[in-house]
Protein backbone atom coordinates (compact mmCIF):
# COMPACT_ATOMS: atom_id res chain seq x y z
CA UNK A 1 0.00 0.00 0.00
CA UNK A 2 1.36 3.40 -0.95
CA UNK A 3 1.96 5.72 2.01
CA UNK A 4 -0.86 8.21 2.64
CA UNK A 5 0.17 11.75 1.58
CA UNK A 6 0.73 14.02 4.60
CA UNK A 7 -1.44 17.01 3.71
CA UNK A 8 -3.67 16.88 0.68
CA UNK A 9 -6.00 19.39 -1.01
CA UNK A 10 -8.43 17.25 -2.98
CA UNK A 11 -10.81 18.85 -5.48
CA UNK A 12 -11.27 22.11 -3.60
CA UNK A 13 -13.55 24.94 -4.72
CA UNK A 14 -14.83 27.82 -2.64
CA UNK A 15 -17.66 30.28 -3.10
CA UNK A 16 -18.67 33.09 -0.77
CA UNK A 17 -22.23 33.42 -1.99
CA UNK A 18 -21.88 34.14 -5.72
CA UNK A 19 -18.25 35.12 -5.39
CA UNK A 20 -15.89 32.46 -6.66
CA UNK A 21 -12.80 32.51 -4.47
CA UNK A 22 -11.10 29.27 -5.44
CA UNK A 23 -11.52 28.13 -9.05
CA UNK A 24 -12.46 24.49 -9.67
CA UNK A 25 -10.58 22.56 -8.75
CA UNK A 26 -7.57 23.04 -6.52
CA UNK A 27 -5.39 19.99 -5.87
CA UNK A 28 -2.10 19.93 -4.01
CA UNK A 29 -0.14 17.40 -2.01
CA UNK A 30 2.26 18.57 0.66
CA UNK A 31 4.99 16.41 2.15
CA UNK A 32 5.79 16.25 5.84
CA UNK A 33 8.34 18.91 6.89
CA UNK A 34 7.88 20.78 3.66
CA UNK A 35 7.93 24.59 3.56
CA UNK A 36 5.26 25.64 1.08
CA UNK A 37 4.80 29.27 0.07
CA UNK A 38 1.54 30.46 -1.47
CA UNK A 39 2.56 33.39 -3.64
CA UNK A 40 0.15 35.61 -5.51
CA UNK A 41 -1.65 38.93 -5.73
CA UNK A 42 -3.44 40.25 -2.64
CA UNK A 43 -7.03 39.08 -2.32
CA UNK A 44 -6.42 36.14 -4.63
CA UNK A 45 -7.93 33.48 -2.37
CA UNK A 46 -4.66 31.97 -1.17
CA UNK A 47 -5.41 32.98 2.39
CA UNK A 48 -8.78 31.28 2.12
CA UNK A 49 -7.08 28.05 1.06
CA UNK A 50 -4.72 28.27 4.00
CA UNK A 51 -7.57 28.98 6.41
CA UNK A 52 -9.29 25.84 5.18
CA UNK A 53 -6.29 23.86 6.42
CA UNK A 54 -6.74 25.60 9.76
CA UNK A 55 -10.37 24.48 9.80
CA UNK A 56 -11.48 28.14 9.90
CA UNK A 57 -13.20 27.91 6.50
CA UNK A 58 -15.01 25.00 4.88
CA UNK A 59 -14.46 24.18 1.21
CA UNK A 60 -17.58 24.40 -0.99
CA UNK A 61 -16.55 21.13 -2.61
CA UNK A 62 -13.75 18.64 -2.03
CA UNK A 63 -11.84 18.05 1.16
CA UNK A 64 -8.49 18.62 2.77
CA UNK A 65 -6.93 15.64 4.51
CA UNK A 66 -4.18 15.58 7.11
CA UNK A 67 -2.75 12.10 7.76
CA UNK A 68 -5.63 10.87 5.59
CA UNK A 69 -8.24 12.36 7.98
CA UNK A 70 -10.55 15.07 6.57
CA UNK A 71 -10.18 18.45 8.27
CA UNK A 72 -13.49 19.66 9.67
CA UNK A 73 -12.61 22.06 12.50
CA UNK A 74 -9.68 23.90 14.05
CA UNK A 75 -7.40 21.98 16.39
CA UNK A 76 -3.96 22.39 17.89
CA UNK A 77 -2.19 20.18 15.34
CA UNK A 78 -2.56 23.15 12.96
CA UNK A 79 -1.43 26.48 14.40
CA UNK A 80 -2.05 29.93 12.94
CA UNK A 81 0.18 32.99 12.92
CA UNK A 82 -1.62 36.13 11.78
CA UNK A 83 -0.22 39.37 10.45
CA UNK A 84 -1.95 41.49 13.09
CA UNK A 85 -3.53 40.79 16.48
CA UNK A 86 -1.13 37.87 16.69
CA UNK A 87 -0.73 37.99 20.49
CA UNK A 88 -3.04 38.83 23.38
CA UNK A 89 -2.25 42.28 24.83
CA UNK A 90 -3.47 41.37 28.34
CA UNK A 91 -0.97 38.52 28.73
CA UNK A 92 2.79 38.86 29.20
CA UNK A 93 5.13 37.45 26.56
CA UNK A 94 5.59 34.25 28.60
CA UNK A 95 1.86 33.93 29.31
CA UNK A 96 1.14 34.37 25.61
CA UNK A 97 3.49 31.56 24.70
CA UNK A 98 2.16 29.39 27.54
CA UNK A 99 -1.37 30.00 26.25
CA UNK A 100 -0.55 27.56 23.45
CA UNK A 101 -0.49 24.76 26.06
CA UNK A 102 -3.35 26.00 28.23
CA UNK A 103 -5.80 23.33 27.09
CA UNK A 104 -3.32 20.45 27.04
CA UNK A 105 -4.36 18.17 29.87
CA UNK A 106 -1.79 15.59 28.81
CA UNK A 107 1.15 17.70 30.04
CA UNK A 108 2.24 18.17 33.63
CA UNK A 109 2.87 21.75 34.82
CA UNK A 110 6.60 20.95 35.01
CA UNK A 111 6.62 19.82 31.40
CA UNK A 112 4.72 22.93 30.34
CA UNK A 113 7.24 25.09 32.16
CA UNK A 114 10.14 23.31 30.49
CA UNK A 115 8.54 23.70 27.06
CA UNK A 116 7.79 27.35 27.73
CA UNK A 117 11.43 28.04 28.59
CA UNK A 118 12.59 26.06 25.57
CA UNK A 119 10.44 27.94 23.07
CA UNK A 120 11.03 31.35 24.62
CA UNK A 121 14.73 30.70 24.19
CA UNK A 122 14.29 29.31 20.68
CA UNK A 123 12.70 32.54 19.45
CA UNK A 124 14.99 34.71 21.58
CA UNK A 125 12.39 36.16 23.93
CA UNK A 126 13.66 34.86 27.30
CA UNK A 127 14.73 38.35 28.36
CA UNK A 128 11.27 39.75 27.63
CA UNK A 129 9.28 36.98 29.32
CA UNK A 130 7.52 39.33 31.73
CA UNK A 131 6.94 42.24 29.37
CA UNK A 132 3.56 42.97 27.86
CA UNK A 133 3.30 42.82 24.06
CA UNK A 134 2.78 46.59 23.76
CA UNK A 135 6.27 47.05 25.23
CA UNK A 136 8.06 44.92 22.63
CA UNK A 137 8.67 45.44 18.89
CA UNK A 138 6.47 44.18 16.08
CA UNK A 139 9.06 41.55 15.22
CA UNK A 140 9.01 40.25 18.77
CA UNK A 141 5.22 40.07 18.71
CA UNK A 142 5.43 37.85 15.64
CA UNK A 143 7.97 35.68 17.45
CA UNK A 144 5.55 35.38 20.38
CA UNK A 145 2.98 33.99 17.97
CA UNK A 146 5.45 31.56 16.44
CA UNK A 147 6.57 30.34 19.87
CA UNK A 148 2.95 29.94 21.03
CA UNK A 149 2.13 27.85 17.98
CA UNK A 150 5.21 25.68 18.47
CA UNK A 151 4.51 25.30 22.20
CA UNK A 152 0.97 24.18 21.37
CA UNK A 153 2.59 21.25 19.60
CA UNK A 154 1.29 22.14 16.15
CA UNK A 155 2.85 20.05 13.41
CA UNK A 156 1.54 22.34 10.73
CA UNK A 157 2.16 26.09 10.90
CA UNK A 158 -0.16 28.30 8.89
CA UNK A 159 1.29 31.77 8.45
CA UNK A 160 -0.65 34.58 6.80
CA UNK A 161 1.85 37.28 5.78
CA UNK A 162 3.28 37.15 9.29
CA UNK A 163 6.15 39.52 8.52
CA UNK A 164 4.11 41.93 6.41
CA UNK A 165 4.24 44.83 8.85
CA UNK A 166 7.94 44.60 9.70
CA UNK A 167 10.87 46.64 8.48
CA UNK A 168 13.29 45.01 6.06
CA UNK A 169 16.00 44.17 8.58
CA UNK A 170 13.72 42.48 11.15
CA UNK A 171 11.99 40.70 8.36
CA UNK A 172 15.23 39.17 7.16
CA UNK A 173 16.22 38.15 10.70
CA UNK A 174 12.89 36.47 11.27
CA UNK A 175 12.98 34.70 7.92
CA UNK A 176 16.32 33.13 8.77
CA UNK A 177 15.04 32.24 12.23
CA UNK A 178 11.83 30.72 10.93
CA UNK A 179 13.66 28.61 8.41
CA UNK A 180 16.04 27.41 11.13
CA UNK A 181 13.16 26.52 13.48
CA UNK A 182 11.35 24.71 10.69
CA UNK A 183 14.43 22.59 9.97
CA UNK A 184 15.25 21.99 13.62
CA UNK A 185 11.74 21.11 14.83
CA UNK A 186 10.68 19.44 11.57
CA UNK A 187 7.53 21.46 10.99
CA UNK A 188 5.34 21.61 7.93
CA UNK A 189 4.63 25.23 7.01
CA UNK A 190 2.20 26.91 4.66
CA UNK A 191 3.26 30.52 4.31
CA UNK A 192 1.18 33.10 2.46
CA UNK A 193 2.92 36.15 1.01
CA UNK A 194 2.99 38.44 -2.01
CA UNK A 195 6.71 39.16 -1.58
CA UNK A 196 8.71 37.26 -4.21
CA UNK A 197 12.01 37.67 -2.40
CA UNK A 198 10.59 36.27 0.81
CA UNK A 199 8.95 33.40 -1.03
CA UNK A 200 12.12 32.27 -2.76
CA UNK A 201 14.23 32.62 0.36
CA UNK A 202 11.89 30.59 2.58
CA UNK A 203 10.26 27.99 0.40
CA UNK A 204 10.97 24.42 -0.45
CA UNK A 205 8.25 24.81 -3.01
CA UNK A 206 6.36 27.88 -4.24
CA UNK A 207 2.82 27.73 -5.52
CA UNK A 208 2.11 30.77 -7.71
CA UNK A 209 -1.53 31.83 -7.74
CA UNK A 210 -3.62 33.74 -10.25
CA UNK A 211 -5.86 36.65 -9.39
CA UNK A 212 -9.17 35.67 -7.83
CA UNK A 213 -10.61 33.11 -8.27
CA UNK A 214 -7.45 31.39 -7.07
CA UNK A 215 -5.93 28.98 -9.56
CA UNK A 216 -2.51 27.38 -9.38
CA UNK A 217 -0.43 28.86 -12.21
CA UNK A 218 2.99 27.46 -11.46
CA UNK A 219 4.78 25.23 -9.02
CA UNK A 220 8.45 26.08 -8.48
CA UNK A 221 10.71 23.58 -6.77
CA UNK A 222 13.06 25.81 -4.78
CA UNK A 223 14.53 23.07 -2.60
CA UNK A 224 16.01 21.37 -5.68
CA UNK A 225 17.76 24.60 -6.66
CA UNK A 226 18.78 26.07 -3.31
CA UNK A 227 18.96 23.13 -0.89
CA UNK A 228 17.73 23.15 2.70
CA UNK A 229 20.04 25.76 4.27
CA UNK A 230 19.16 29.41 3.78
CA UNK A 231 21.77 31.96 4.75
CA UNK A 232 22.49 35.62 4.11
CA UNK A 233 25.24 34.65 1.66
CA UNK A 234 22.74 32.63 -0.34
CA UNK A 235 20.52 35.67 -0.53
CA UNK A 236 23.28 37.62 -2.28
CA UNK A 237 24.23 34.78 -4.61
CA UNK A 238 23.77 34.56 -8.36
CA UNK A 239 21.70 31.35 -7.96
CA UNK A 240 19.21 33.10 -5.68
CA UNK A 241 18.97 36.10 -7.95
CA UNK A 242 18.28 34.02 -11.06
CA UNK A 243 15.60 31.98 -9.32
CA UNK A 244 14.01 35.13 -7.98
CA UNK A 245 13.86 36.64 -11.48
CA UNK A 246 12.26 33.48 -12.80
CA UNK A 247 9.58 33.44 -10.11
CA UNK A 248 9.00 37.16 -10.56
CA UNK A 249 8.20 36.47 -14.22
CA UNK A 250 5.47 34.04 -13.18
CA UNK A 251 4.08 36.55 -10.71
CA UNK A 252 4.03 39.29 -13.34
CA UNK A 253 2.19 36.96 -15.67
CA UNK A 254 -0.30 36.21 -12.89
CA UNK A 255 -0.88 39.90 -12.26
CA UNK A 256 -1.20 40.71 -15.95
CA UNK A 257 -3.64 37.98 -16.94
CA UNK A 258 -7.24 38.98 -17.50
CA UNK A 259 -9.36 36.36 -15.84
Amino acid sequence: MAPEPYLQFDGITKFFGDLEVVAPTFNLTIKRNEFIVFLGPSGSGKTTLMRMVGGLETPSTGEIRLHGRPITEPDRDRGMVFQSYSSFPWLTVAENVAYGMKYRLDMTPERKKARLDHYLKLVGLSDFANSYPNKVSGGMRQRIAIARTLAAGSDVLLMDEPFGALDAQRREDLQIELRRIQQQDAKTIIFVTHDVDEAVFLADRIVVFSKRPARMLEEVDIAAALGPDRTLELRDSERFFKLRTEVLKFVRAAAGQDN
Partner: protein
Amino acid sequence: MTSEATVSTPAEGQDSLTAIPVSKPRNVRKRTRNQFFAFRGTLSRSAQIITSISASLFVIALWEISTRLGWINSLFLPPPSVTVETLWTMITQKHLLWNAGISTLRVWVAFTLSVVMAVPIGIAMSSFRGVGAALEPIVDFIRYLPVPALVPLSIIWFGVGETTKIFLLWLGTFFQLVLLVADDMRRVPQEYVEIAYTVGARPFQMLKDVALRAMLPNLFDNLRITLGWCWTYLIIAEIVAADNGLGFVIWAARRYMNTSEVMAGVVTIGIIGLLTDQILRLIHKRLFRYL
Protein backbone atom coordinates in the same frame (compact mmCIF):
# COMPACT_ATOMS: atom_id res chain seq x y z
CA MET B 1 9.55 72.84 36.68
CA THR B 2 10.90 69.50 35.55
CA SER B 3 8.08 69.13 33.08
CA GLU B 4 8.90 72.44 31.42
CA ALA B 5 12.50 71.38 31.06
CA THR B 6 11.40 68.15 29.34
CA VAL B 7 9.14 70.02 26.97
CA SER B 8 11.92 72.33 25.89
CA THR B 9 14.47 69.63 25.09
CA PRO B 10 13.56 69.01 21.41
CA ALA B 11 13.62 72.73 20.69
CA GLU B 12 17.07 73.05 22.20
CA GLY B 13 18.28 70.21 20.03
CA GLN B 14 16.90 71.97 17.00
CA ASP B 15 18.65 75.17 17.97
CA SER B 16 22.06 73.58 18.13
CA LEU B 17 21.45 72.02 14.71
CA THR B 18 20.39 75.20 12.95
CA ALA B 19 22.73 77.28 15.11
CA ILE B 20 20.28 80.10 15.57
CA PRO B 21 20.88 81.75 18.92
CA VAL B 22 17.61 81.97 20.81
CA SER B 23 17.44 82.97 24.44
CA LYS B 24 16.43 79.99 26.53
CA PRO B 25 13.52 81.32 28.61
CA ARG B 26 11.64 82.65 25.58
CA ASN B 27 12.13 79.34 23.86
CA VAL B 28 10.67 77.40 26.78
CA ARG B 29 7.58 79.56 26.84
CA LYS B 30 7.05 79.15 23.16
CA ARG B 31 7.24 75.36 23.29
CA THR B 32 4.81 75.19 26.20
CA ARG B 33 2.25 77.29 24.40
CA ASN B 34 2.61 75.16 21.28
CA GLN B 35 1.91 72.00 23.26
CA PHE B 36 -1.07 73.62 24.92
CA PHE B 37 -3.00 74.19 21.71
CA ALA B 38 -1.30 71.68 19.43
CA PHE B 39 -3.77 69.26 17.86
CA ARG B 40 -3.41 66.04 19.89
CA GLY B 41 -0.42 67.60 21.65
CA THR B 42 0.69 66.28 25.02
CA LEU B 43 0.70 68.05 28.37
CA SER B 44 2.52 66.96 31.47
CA ARG B 45 0.33 65.55 34.22
CA SER B 46 0.91 68.47 36.55
CA ALA B 47 0.16 70.96 33.77
CA GLN B 48 -3.11 69.15 33.06
CA ILE B 49 -4.14 69.17 36.72
CA ILE B 50 -3.30 72.85 37.07
CA THR B 51 -5.29 73.66 33.91
CA SER B 52 -8.30 71.65 35.13
CA ILE B 53 -8.32 73.31 38.54
CA SER B 54 -7.78 76.81 37.15
CA ALA B 55 -10.63 76.42 34.68
CA SER B 56 -12.97 75.20 37.42
CA LEU B 57 -11.93 78.03 39.74
CA PHE B 58 -12.49 80.53 36.94
CA VAL B 59 -16.08 79.33 36.40
CA ILE B 60 -16.78 79.43 40.13
CA ALA B 61 -15.28 82.91 40.44
CA LEU B 62 -17.29 84.20 37.47
CA TRP B 63 -20.42 82.72 39.02
CA GLU B 64 -19.70 84.37 42.40
CA ILE B 65 -18.88 87.76 40.89
CA SER B 66 -21.86 87.87 38.56
CA THR B 67 -24.26 87.36 41.45
CA ARG B 68 -22.38 89.69 43.81
CA LEU B 69 -22.39 92.49 41.26
CA GLY B 70 -26.07 91.91 40.66
CA TRP B 71 -25.74 90.80 36.99
CA ILE B 72 -27.86 87.86 37.99
CA ASN B 73 -30.54 87.90 40.65
CA SER B 74 -29.17 85.72 43.44
CA LEU B 75 -32.70 84.52 44.14
CA PHE B 76 -32.49 82.61 40.87
CA LEU B 77 -28.84 81.71 41.00
CA PRO B 78 -27.36 81.75 44.50
CA PRO B 79 -23.60 82.39 44.49
CA PRO B 80 -21.19 79.54 45.28
CA SER B 81 -20.47 80.92 48.76
CA VAL B 82 -24.14 80.71 49.68
CA THR B 83 -24.48 77.31 48.05
CA VAL B 84 -21.59 75.93 50.09
CA GLU B 85 -23.06 77.44 53.26
CA THR B 86 -26.44 75.86 52.53
CA LEU B 87 -24.72 72.59 51.71
CA TRP B 88 -23.17 72.58 55.16
CA THR B 89 -26.46 73.42 56.90
CA MET B 90 -28.19 70.66 54.95
CA ILE B 91 -25.52 68.15 55.92
CA THR B 92 -25.64 69.03 59.59
CA GLN B 93 -29.35 69.69 60.00
CA LYS B 94 -31.30 68.19 57.12
CA HIS B 95 -29.80 64.72 56.60
CA LEU B 96 -28.39 65.58 53.17
CA LEU B 97 -25.81 62.79 53.36
CA TRP B 98 -28.49 60.29 54.30
CA ASN B 99 -30.55 61.32 51.26
CA ALA B 100 -27.46 61.22 49.07
CA GLY B 101 -26.75 57.73 50.40
CA ILE B 102 -30.26 56.55 49.55
CA SER B 103 -29.95 57.92 46.02
CA THR B 104 -26.52 56.34 45.53
CA LEU B 105 -27.86 53.03 46.79
CA ARG B 106 -30.78 53.17 44.34
CA VAL B 107 -28.43 53.96 41.48
CA TRP B 108 -26.13 51.07 42.33
CA VAL B 109 -28.90 48.51 42.88
CA ALA B 110 -30.52 49.37 39.55
CA PHE B 111 -27.20 49.63 37.77
CA THR B 112 -26.03 46.26 39.09
CA LEU B 113 -29.30 44.71 37.99
CA SER B 114 -28.83 46.20 34.51
CA VAL B 115 -25.25 44.99 34.25
CA VAL B 116 -26.01 41.48 35.47
CA MET B 117 -28.69 41.17 32.80
CA ALA B 118 -27.12 43.18 29.98
CA VAL B 119 -23.67 41.57 29.92
CA PRO B 120 -24.73 37.96 29.25
CA ILE B 121 -27.61 38.97 26.97
CA GLY B 122 -25.43 41.41 25.04
CA ILE B 123 -22.72 38.79 24.59
CA ALA B 124 -25.30 36.25 23.42
CA MET B 125 -26.78 38.78 20.97
CA SER B 126 -23.48 39.36 19.21
CA SER B 127 -22.22 35.79 19.47
CA PHE B 128 -25.30 33.98 18.17
CA ARG B 129 -26.96 35.42 15.09
CA GLY B 130 -30.30 33.88 16.11
CA VAL B 131 -30.38 35.61 19.49
CA GLY B 132 -29.29 38.86 17.88
CA ALA B 133 -31.95 38.69 15.17
CA ALA B 134 -34.63 37.93 17.76
CA LEU B 135 -33.74 40.62 20.30
CA GLU B 136 -32.36 43.54 18.29
CA PRO B 137 -35.71 44.95 17.05
CA ILE B 138 -37.25 44.65 20.52
CA VAL B 139 -34.29 46.28 22.23
CA ASP B 140 -34.11 49.03 19.62
CA PHE B 141 -37.79 49.82 20.01
CA ILE B 142 -37.68 50.11 23.78
CA ARG B 143 -34.37 51.95 23.70
CA TYR B 144 -35.99 54.88 21.92
CA LEU B 145 -38.85 55.22 24.38
CA PRO B 146 -38.16 58.19 26.66
CA VAL B 147 -38.13 56.98 30.26
CA PRO B 148 -40.37 59.84 31.54
CA ALA B 149 -43.08 58.64 29.16
CA LEU B 150 -43.18 55.37 31.04
CA VAL B 151 -43.42 56.90 34.52
CA PRO B 152 -47.25 56.82 34.67
CA LEU B 153 -47.34 53.19 33.59
CA SER B 154 -44.69 52.12 36.06
CA ILE B 155 -46.55 53.86 38.90
CA ILE B 156 -49.71 52.02 37.90
CA TRP B 157 -47.77 48.76 37.83
CA PHE B 158 -45.57 49.08 40.88
CA GLY B 159 -47.05 51.91 43.00
CA VAL B 160 -44.73 54.57 44.35
CA GLY B 161 -42.36 52.31 46.29
CA GLU B 162 -38.77 51.38 45.58
CA THR B 163 -39.73 48.99 42.79
CA THR B 164 -40.86 51.85 40.56
CA LYS B 165 -37.60 53.73 40.99
CA ILE B 166 -35.44 50.69 40.38
CA PHE B 167 -37.60 49.79 37.38
CA LEU B 168 -37.25 53.24 35.81
CA LEU B 169 -33.48 53.27 36.26
CA TRP B 170 -33.20 49.77 34.90
CA LEU B 171 -35.38 50.74 31.95
CA GLY B 172 -33.16 53.70 31.16
CA THR B 173 -29.90 51.79 31.26
CA PHE B 174 -30.48 48.12 30.45
CA PHE B 175 -31.57 48.58 26.85
CA GLN B 176 -28.73 50.98 26.09
CA LEU B 177 -26.18 48.83 27.82
CA VAL B 178 -27.18 45.60 26.15
CA LEU B 179 -26.40 47.08 22.73
CA LEU B 180 -23.10 48.53 23.94
CA VAL B 181 -22.09 45.13 25.33
CA ALA B 182 -23.05 43.45 22.06
CA ASP B 183 -20.91 45.98 20.22
CA ASP B 184 -17.94 45.45 22.53
CA MET B 185 -18.11 41.73 21.87
CA ARG B 186 -18.45 42.29 18.13
CA ARG B 187 -15.26 44.36 18.15
CA VAL B 188 -13.14 41.52 19.60
CA PRO B 189 -10.76 40.74 16.72
CA GLN B 190 -11.63 37.53 14.91
CA GLU B 191 -7.91 36.66 15.08
CA TYR B 192 -8.11 36.29 18.88
CA VAL B 193 -11.02 33.89 18.56
CA GLU B 194 -9.17 31.88 15.93
CA ILE B 195 -5.95 31.75 17.98
CA ALA B 196 -7.98 30.21 20.82
CA TYR B 197 -9.58 27.61 18.57
CA THR B 198 -6.31 26.64 16.89
CA VAL B 199 -4.67 25.87 20.24
CA GLY B 200 -7.56 23.60 21.11
CA ALA B 201 -9.97 25.79 23.12
CA ARG B 202 -13.62 24.72 23.35
CA PRO B 203 -16.16 27.51 22.64
CA PHE B 204 -16.79 28.16 26.34
CA GLN B 205 -13.04 28.33 27.04
CA MET B 206 -12.58 30.73 24.12
CA LEU B 207 -15.34 32.95 25.51
CA LYS B 208 -14.00 32.93 29.06
CA ASP B 209 -10.25 33.14 28.43
CA VAL B 210 -10.14 35.27 25.30
CA ALA B 211 -13.30 37.07 24.17
CA LEU B 212 -14.26 38.31 27.64
CA ARG B 213 -10.73 39.38 28.44
CA ALA B 214 -10.41 41.17 25.11
CA MET B 215 -13.65 43.13 25.52
CA LEU B 216 -13.13 43.99 29.19
CA PRO B 217 -11.46 47.43 28.82
CA ASN B 218 -14.20 48.69 26.48
CA LEU B 219 -16.90 47.10 28.60
CA PHE B 220 -15.56 48.82 31.69
CA ASP B 221 -15.64 52.19 29.91
CA ASN B 222 -19.20 51.66 28.75
CA LEU B 223 -20.29 50.70 32.26
CA ARG B 224 -18.72 53.88 33.59
CA ILE B 225 -20.64 55.98 31.07
CA THR B 226 -23.92 54.16 31.65
CA LEU B 227 -23.60 54.65 35.40
CA GLY B 228 -23.70 58.40 34.72
CA TRP B 229 -27.02 58.06 32.86
CA CYS B 230 -28.45 56.28 35.88
CA TRP B 231 -28.34 59.54 37.80
CA THR B 232 -30.48 61.31 35.21
CA TYR B 233 -33.22 58.72 35.52
CA LEU B 234 -32.85 58.63 39.29
CA ILE B 235 -33.74 62.30 39.63
CA ILE B 236 -36.76 61.83 37.39
CA ALA B 237 -37.86 58.85 39.46
CA GLU B 238 -37.33 60.63 42.77
CA ILE B 239 -39.12 63.77 41.64
CA VAL B 240 -42.25 61.87 40.69
CA ALA B 241 -42.42 59.24 43.35
CA ALA B 242 -40.30 59.54 46.47
CA ASP B 243 -40.17 61.02 49.93
CA ASN B 244 -36.41 60.80 50.24
CA GLY B 245 -33.30 60.92 48.07
CA LEU B 246 -31.59 63.83 46.33
CA GLY B 247 -34.27 64.20 43.68
CA PHE B 248 -36.87 64.57 46.41
CA VAL B 249 -34.70 67.12 48.27
CA ILE B 250 -34.30 69.24 45.14
CA TRP B 251 -37.98 69.08 44.24
CA ALA B 252 -39.08 69.87 47.80
CA ALA B 253 -36.79 72.92 47.95
CA ARG B 254 -38.24 74.18 44.65
CA ARG B 255 -41.67 74.36 46.21
CA TYR B 256 -40.47 77.12 48.56
CA MET B 257 -38.30 78.84 45.93
CA ASN B 258 -35.36 77.81 48.07
CA THR B 259 -32.90 78.02 45.20
CA SER B 260 -29.80 77.67 47.36
CA GLU B 261 -31.04 74.26 48.55
CA VAL B 262 -31.85 73.27 44.96
CA MET B 263 -28.35 74.34 43.99
CA ALA B 264 -26.82 72.46 46.92
CA GLY B 265 -28.65 69.28 45.86
CA VAL B 266 -27.48 69.67 42.28
CA VAL B 267 -23.92 70.29 43.40
CA THR B 268 -24.06 67.16 45.58
CA ILE B 269 -24.99 65.08 42.53
CA GLY B 270 -22.15 66.69 40.60
CA ILE B 271 -19.64 65.88 43.32
CA ILE B 272 -20.80 62.26 43.61
CA GLY B 273 -20.56 61.92 39.83
CA LEU B 274 -17.11 63.46 39.68
CA LEU B 275 -15.78 61.26 42.49
CA THR B 276 -17.29 58.05 41.08
CA ASP B 277 -15.92 58.78 37.65
CA GLN B 278 -12.42 59.55 38.93
CA ILE B 279 -12.36 56.39 41.07
CA LEU B 280 -13.53 54.25 38.15
CA ARG B 281 -10.92 55.82 35.86
CA LEU B 282 -8.26 55.00 38.41
CA ILE B 283 -9.45 51.39 38.62
CA HIS B 284 -9.45 51.22 34.81
CA LYS B 285 -5.85 52.38 34.75
CA ARG B 286 -4.82 49.83 37.37
CA LEU B 287 -6.71 46.93 35.78
CA PHE B 288 -5.57 47.56 32.23
CA ARG B 289 -1.93 48.51 32.67
CA TYR B 290 -1.13 46.60 29.49
CA LEU B 291 -3.00 49.04 27.25
